[in-house]
């Protein structure tokens, strides 16, 4: 190869990456990004950097390098300027493409396969989200460490240099700090050794104790195991999940789901042709005792295995690293057929096109969707920042927030990052938003009608309409609308005791607000609007200090309109709690109900003269 061609060979996949994901490079922050961007606030509050870096968060995950350190360092350097974050993701992905090319080339001995593998990987729909979302950097970074470890393993096999063995270990260990998926690397290394380098089998076994210890520690420190949509199911549903992922990986099915205008038969027929081609090639190679095909297919299965039990949370970006195996297999198949007769060349090019064209179509559509959603989020967050500058002492109400904007731009509380703490959805907004259990509770973000009307009448609130090219101050119109629709005496069915707007709902015994919460003494009370249906429950959230459980569980007794519930036993100290109670059917439609609270003991800190019972946050009926 001439130097220019050689350079083009290595750079072409990266240029394609930029071309395909150009919008991803410009995509702003969204969803979980805001939770990670807020880590610095937690660090400021607690000063415990080790807890911020290593404590389990978000479904019990611990990803210090790809999430905690990434966001902490970049926020410190660049704040809410998204471009450097995106560039870091792209730079890592460019390194991945070079590594994949090098690894495939070494495995197959084919330059064509080395060129095609990163291209096949790039166009896959699985990459749309990681290439458009900073919170999915864990996938890109884990792929980097996995490919680097494998590259080092190959180099060690070929050269015998110990440096490569050490680098493989370092990559493996570093990968564990990027994503839990890295825990399967020893299985991949063993598979590689069995298929292609039997002399390495013993060496790879040393990685298993590390992986098992990591998995055990991870399981142990996760507070309450996976729950909700992250609950794991080990049954026949695994095969169903595998089949879904397989179809997504081949692209045609996902294209038919995301984009419109395609004939219905195309997706199943396309999937069948691609499956037959890929599996047929692998079977043919295996029949000829070429175990490399087994390794490539095994890569897909092994790396996908940890997420298969999450049948209620199938996500196409979980395929990011597994499809590397299929990309290598597909690239090898095309490269082999290009060496054969002309009809095989035509068939392989047609099959490759049947994968690339639909995949690219779906990937581009998904990338544009992420970009446009994030653009709406940027307009919202920066608009709220401006509104807060203009009205620093007023709370901000937002109207016109739709489902997508809420879940991508508000549920992860981005406004604290621009200093605006009192930002709520206008009353009634919850009607436009679908509840998504596990992701947040919409009513926690909505200011109830009574407090909203009071704030408007007292000129303590401004209202902005969301949805256009910029936020529009509609306070004057909204004030009239609010008077028309609500009464100031209407009792909210949600009370945030740490917010002064709800002070009228509280009884006399509560202590003063501290930050975003309040202490109760031995007894406290409050009132709420009654439930609108008999299925609704009363939810209470708070925080139990360690002092209160030092002598055993703390008894919290709740009464609703005189009805006394069996006491709740709080056993964990220095921990948040949430409890819920069914409500008597006769309370349905009542304009006001009284809630009573009592704890069986209080304590008095040395620096405080108050008797303290428990800390509370919110009470809501929903």
């Amino acid at each position, binding site marked *: 190869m001439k130097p220019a061609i050689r350079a083009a060979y290595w750079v072409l996949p990266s240029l394609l990456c930029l071309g395909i994901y150009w919008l991803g490079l410009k995509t702003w922050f969204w969803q979980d990004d805001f939770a990670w961007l807020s880590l610095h606030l937690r660090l400021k509050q607690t000063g415990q950097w080790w807890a911020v870096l290593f404590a389990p968060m978000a479904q019990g995950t611990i990803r210090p390098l790809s999430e905690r350190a990434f966001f902490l360092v970049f926020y410190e350097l660049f704040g809410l300027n998204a471009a450097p974050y995106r560039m*870091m993701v792209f730079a890592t992905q460019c390194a991945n493409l070079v590594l994949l090319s090098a690894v495939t080339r070494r495995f197959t001995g084919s330059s064509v396969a080395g060129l095609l593998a990163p291209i096949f990987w790039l166009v896959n729909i699985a990459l749309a989200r990681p290439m458009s979302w900073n919170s999915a950097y864990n996938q890109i970074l884990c792929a980097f460490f996995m490919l680097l470890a494998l590259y080092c393993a190959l180099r060690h096999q070929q050269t015998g240099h110990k440096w490569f063995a050490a680098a493989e270990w370092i990559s493996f260990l570093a990968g564990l700090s990027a994503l839990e998926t890295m825990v399967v690397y020893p299985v991949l290394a063993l598979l590689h050794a069995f298929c292609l380098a039997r002399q390495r089998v013993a060496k790879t076994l040393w990685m298993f104790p590390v992986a098992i210890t990591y998995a055990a520690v991870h399981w142990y420190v996760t507070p309450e195991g996976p729950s909700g949509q992250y609950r794991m199911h080990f049954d026949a549903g695994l095969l169903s999940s595998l089949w879904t992922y397989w179809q997504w990986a081949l692209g045609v099915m996902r294209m038919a789901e995301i984009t419109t205008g395609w004939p219905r038969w195309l997706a199943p027929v396309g999937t069948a042709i691609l499956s037959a081609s890929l599996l047929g090639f692998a079977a043919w190679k295996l029949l000829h005792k070429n175990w490399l095909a087994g390794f490539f297919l095994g890569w897909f299965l092994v790396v996908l295995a940890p997420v298969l039990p999450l049948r209620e949370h199938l996500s196409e970006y979980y395929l990011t690293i597994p499809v590397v195996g299929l990309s290598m297999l597909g690239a090898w198949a095309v490269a082999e057929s290009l060496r054969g007769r002309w009809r095989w060349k035509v068939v392989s090019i047609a099959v490759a096109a049947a994968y690339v064209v639909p995949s690219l179509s779906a990937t581009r559509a998904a990338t544009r969707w992420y970009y446009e959603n994030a653009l709406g989020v940027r307009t919202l967050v*920066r608009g709220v920042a401006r509104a807060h500058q203009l009205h620093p002492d007023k709370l901000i109400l937002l109207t016109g927030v739709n489902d997508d904007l809420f879940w991508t731009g508000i549920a992860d509380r981005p406004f604290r990052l621009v200093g605006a703490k009192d930002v709520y959805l206008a009353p009634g907004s919850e009607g436009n938003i679908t509840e998504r259990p596990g992701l947040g509770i919409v009513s926690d973000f909505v200011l109830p009608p009574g407090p909203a009307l009071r704030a408007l009448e007292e000129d303590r609130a401004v209202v902005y*309409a969301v*949805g256009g090219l910029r936020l529009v101050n509609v306070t004057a*119109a909204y004030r009239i609308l609010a008077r*028309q629709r609500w009464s100031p005496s209407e009792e909210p069915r949600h009370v945030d005791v740490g917010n002064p707007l709800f002070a009228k709902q509280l009884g006399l015994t509560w202590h003063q607000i501290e930050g975003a919460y309040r202490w109760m003494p031995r007894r406290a009370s409050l009132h709420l609007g009654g439930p609108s249906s008999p299925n609704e429950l009363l939810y209470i959230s708070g925080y139990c200090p360690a002092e209160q459980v030092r002598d055993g569980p703390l008894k919290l007794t709740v009464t609703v309109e005189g009805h006394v519930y069996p006491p709740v036993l709080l056993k964990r100290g220095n921990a948040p709690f949430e409890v819920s109670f069914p409500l008597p059917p006769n309370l349905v439609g009542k304009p006001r109900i009284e809630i009573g609270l009592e704890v069986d003991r209080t304590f008095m800190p040395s620096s405080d003269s108050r008797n303290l019972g428990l800390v509370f946050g919110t009470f809501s009926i929903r």
Partner: protein
Amino acid sequence: MKKQIRNLFILDVLVAGLVLFVACKHRSAKPEVEATDEHGQTLMSAVHVADPRAAVQLTKGFYDVEQNAWRWTMKQFSVVLRAPEGASKNGATLQMKFSVPNPVIDKLKAITLSVSVNGQALPAETYTRPGEYILKRDVPREVFHGEAVNVDFALDKAMPPSGADLRELGIVVNTVGLEPK
């Protein structure tokens, strides 16, 4: 090849370093802001549903704007309108421009649209053909006892969510308003 890969990694690191350096220069203590429109008008007597300033008055049952011109509704939808001048003496005329799309009639055969203003029911109307319509109703003066009125619309049927569209779809609305008499 080892050399090439090493060179590319060095290039990658240099690019990342350059990005960090350049971006460091732009770190600002203040959050970036986007201008807001502080001159949102007050409540209107007539609204074009695609006007973002009017969105605040669409209180229930409207989907996002489509083609910068109209919105699909749900089975029930509501708007709040400012009472036009003299309405408490003379009453007003409610007027809504909307269309009943082909698929609605294909699927539901006929739909009946009911309307009430501040809780007072006005005569309903049934539509059996697709097309564009203007609903006009006299609103008696008795219902106007404040700066604004709630206008609630209800269809007897709506297209249920389907594979093509996961929304419940009613009719397509362009404008709603109250005109003085």
